[in-house]
């Protein structure tokens, strides 16, 4: 039993020795996939909020979360594309424009601001007429 445990420990130690210290650390350095994971989890949290909450203002905030997830994805892709722009050009003859990401992000922010302004105006006029902000009580257009 002891020899088994010792051999397991020894094999772990040998594994650690075989991989150089740099690559061991590099395995935990974030790459594009990690940014995609963050943005996708943010997107999923936003979707869950939109589908499950009753308060219309919190639903609006979840929509803002979704838009921010998209922004994060666009910026991460543009940055990782920018640093490998030359490689793409040399090896695959593809010309990429890394500035498309920030430009799109700025337009998304503009559209989100406009959407929030109009949406919250609708919320105010709805509250004035119906005295509620709960979406399952606003069912005038339901058959």
């Amino acid at each position, binding site marked *: 039993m002891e020899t088994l445990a010792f051999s397991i420990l020894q094999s772990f130690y040998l594994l650690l020795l075989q991989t150089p210290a740099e690559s061991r650390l590099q395995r935990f*350095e*974030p*790459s*594009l*996939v*990690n940014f*995609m*994971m963050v943005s*996708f*989890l*943010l997107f*999923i*949290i936003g979707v*869950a*909020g939109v*589908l*499950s*909450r*009753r*308060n219309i*203002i*919190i639903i*609006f*905030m*979840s929509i*803002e979360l979704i838009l*921010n997830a998209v*922004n*994060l994805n666009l*910026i991460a892709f*543009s*940055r*990782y594309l*920018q*640093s*490998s722009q*030359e*490689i793409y050009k040399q090896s695959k003859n593809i010309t990429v*424009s890394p*500035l*498309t990401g*920030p*430009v799109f992000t*700025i337009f998304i*922010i*503009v*559209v989100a601001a*406009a*959407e*929030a*302004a*109009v949406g*919250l*105006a609708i919320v*105010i*006029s709805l509250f*004035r007429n119906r005295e509620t*902000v709960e*979406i*399952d009580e606003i069912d005038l257009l339901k058959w």
Partner: protein
Amino acid sequence: MFQLHGWEALLFYFLAFMTLVMAVFVVTARLAIHSALFLIATLVEISLLFILLRAEFVAGVQILVYVGGVMVLFLFVIMLVQTRAEEESRVKLYNSQSVLAYIVAALLAASFYFAVYPAQTAFRPPDNSASAAVAEEGVAGQSGTGLISKDTQNVGEALYRQAALPFEIASLLLLVAMVGAVWLARTTKQEKKGYE
């Protein structure tokens, strides 16, 4: 290949974790005002992630427009429409389809996992040092001389040279949204006044 090293990598994991935790709090908070404050924290952390990605201009716009503009709008509307009903614990926070919503979200997460898992190795930085040197040079050329980043200049040039027409359309959209918001949020007294 662009790569975060050392403390930047640690900072990324910290910011990512805090962003997700705050986002969960946004969705689950009982009061809308708490939700708004957690959303401010999320937005600030996302802008810090933008700074980690060397997109300083977008980070500044994020702080100015979202935290300074949109969130103030949210807080004003919460102040105007608060019913104080959520402070009582018997009020339902979630609608009847919430379990279904969580199932849909979990399915989305699973689909993302199965889509990314086979492609994961493709996103790893290439090992050959020649292309890495080229990439480093490209990044250094982009960041300009000294400590001042050229990101703002690049984005501004792209906005005015390649995206000038969408930029103008965006300003028109903002004008329309402003007029529409003012028009929608009138009181009945103001409405009658307008028709006379």
